[in-house]
């Protein structure tokens, strides 16, 4: 307290104190009047969605266009695949979005919306021959690199795949994701299928126990670290590598062909038998020209649309939106760097959307 001016004797001080007292009283007393409600209510005119960050740029564009065309607003929060699944399970959203399909999907439908790919990017400034052509890698070599068994670029296993390229004998610095992510899931799913050692030691999932390397936060984090560290190797979504002008490897697929990742080869990877519920992993695809580390990304929603006091109109709006996304909405994929759904996948998605019910009865919605 300043010398000579007791607060009680200062007029302004007293007023301030009085206001503070009232404020505190209101603050402490207000919870008494809050209404607690056990029941979730999905209110409002907007459709609510949450989930994966990978397709966010595409969904953002799609929802904007859909809003202009049909006047229906969609609010999508890119909180990650896990968050999307959690929100759908707590029945607080109309739909979720995830890069990894759910294993226990009681009553939950999956439809694919587009395709993405994970590429292996690297930083090799001294290999001049690599500017003209790409580094070639095989699943065994990728697994060994990320397990820490191959530690230098000069290793014969790498040079065997790349004849005519003199790779510098630099240390390999592995860069992986520090946060849980669908990209990690897709990458590890591929290695899970193609490498027994990986399957035993690491497994597949969104967060892994990486034996070597540094972690970057998000795709931009990994891309940034690979760009900064000479001799680094990491995995990112195709879109990021393209946008940041980073080199990425051609990977030998199941048929022995070294496939360069592109929108075309990613779409080709999905050219296989797709099961009715569309829950299929297309990594290590059997498609002849397909890029082996590709994956669908899904939108998940309830088969029984009557939950959390949602109206039938809302259910109709949702189904119309989903129908549009797998048909007309696909035209926005290419410009943003995503691969569009092949015909077979679209047919499956149509059947699934048609199978949604409200109070057990099929829903008539506008296509």
């Amino acid at each position: 307290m300043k010398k000579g001016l007791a607060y009680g004797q200062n007029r302004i001080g007293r007023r301030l104190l009085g206001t503070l007292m009232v404020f505190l009283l209101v603050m402490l007393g207000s919870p008494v009047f809050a209404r607690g409600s056990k029941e979730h209510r999905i209110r409002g005119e907007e459709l609510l969605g949450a989930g994966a960050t990978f397709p966010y740029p595409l969904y953002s564009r799609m929802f904007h266009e859909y809003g202009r065309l049909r006047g229906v607003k969609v609010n999508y929060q890119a909180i990650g695949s896990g968050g999307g699944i959690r929100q759908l399970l707590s029945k607080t959203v109309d739909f979720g979005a995830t890069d990894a399909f759910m294993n226990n999907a009681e009553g939950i439908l999956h439809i694919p919306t587009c395709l993405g790919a994970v590429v292996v990017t690297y930083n090799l400034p001294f290999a001049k021959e690599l500017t003209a052509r790409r580094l070639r890698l095989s699943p065994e070599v990728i697994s060994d690199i990320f397990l820490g068994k191959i530690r230098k670029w000069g290793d014969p296993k790498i040079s065997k795949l790349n004849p005519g390229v003199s790779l510098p004998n630099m240390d390999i610095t592995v860069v992986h994701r520090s946060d849980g992510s669908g990209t990690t899931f897709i990458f590890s799913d591929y290695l899970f299928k193609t490498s027994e050692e990986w399957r035993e030691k690491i497994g597949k999932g969104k967060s892994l126990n990486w034996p070597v390397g540094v972690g970057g936060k998000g795709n931009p984090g990994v891309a940034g670290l690979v760009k900064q560290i000479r001799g680094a190797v990491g995995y990112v979504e195709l879109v990021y590598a393209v946008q940041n002008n980073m080199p990425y490897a051609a990977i030998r697929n199941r048929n022995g062909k070294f496939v360069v990742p592109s929108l075309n080869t990613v779409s080709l990877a999905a050219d296989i038998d797709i099961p009715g519920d569309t829950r299929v992993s297309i990594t290590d695809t059997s498609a002849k020209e397909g890029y082996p580390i590709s994956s669908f990304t899904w939108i998940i929603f309830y088969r029984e649309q009557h939950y959390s006091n949602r109206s039938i109109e809302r259910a109709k709006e949702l189904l119309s939106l989903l129908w549009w996304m797998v048909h007309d909405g696909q035209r926005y994929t290419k410009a943003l760097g995503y691969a569009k759904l092949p015909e077979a996948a679209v047919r499956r998605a149509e059947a699934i959307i048609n199978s949604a019910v409200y109070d057990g009865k099929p829903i008539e919605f506008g296509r």
Partner: protein
Amino acid sequence: MKMRARYNGSENKIKLKEWLFRMVLTAAGVTIVLLLGGIFFSLFVKALPAIKHNGFYFIRGSVWNPQSGRYGIFSFIVGTLLTSFIALIISVPSALAISVLLSEYLPGYRNGRFFISFLKNATDLLAGVPSVIYGFWGLVFVTPVIRYFEELLHLPVYGVSILAASVVLAIMILPYMASISREVIALVPAELKEASYALGATRYETVGGVVLRYSASGIVASIVLALGRAMGETMAVTMLVGNSNRLPANILRFILGPGNTMASVIANEFAEATNSVYLSSLTEIGLFLFIISLILNGIGKWTVRRFAL
């Protein structure tokens, strides 16, 4: 200063006001205690499944593998303690130097007032910079420098490392220490200093022997505050620490290489943790961090009381 006569109410009115005032203050105090208890309680309840599942392995194990269900945070504990304490070692001398400069030396100069306010504002501004900005700045400016040294010492070149996080943390916690120490040092009674000079002590001897000893308890309190801040710092650390769970035996390699901290792991993995034991283990880390902060605060208070004159 005018003394206003109390014509504006009877004695009862005054008594009511006083009582009300006391009640509101008590309520505010009680709310804070309840909040703290509530945080601890909710953390504990959510972490219970993990506590049962992990047992003591949690603290001594260094394998963090959500796929196989093994959750050991030893490497995170080491990383947290290392980054926080190295940050302290780096920033305490600078903070002390700034506070002594601002309160003891600069006031004596002719244009001292300008420099005092400039330095004061500059230091306080450091506290206002968002965490993420510190992270970006560290990535762009600090990591290349560390890479240079790693190459020089023939160590694997990463850049992002415990050291990178520590350096940026040091800058982040500097303003907290500097501003509190500055205020405490300014409160040293002039009589004590004058007595010291009268006995023939030099400027250096007075500052070291009288000023700093008198304000030691306040300075220690500010260090404890800064340490608590450093341990809980998430965003900047997670961008700079390298996010690796390794535990090399050589301490130099560890500092100049990637590591991980408790806050960083929680921030990174919480959003995608759908498995309930996984989520619960992350909450257990939070509980642990909470308890460590409480312990450190307790130690700080004890130290303050020990050194108080």
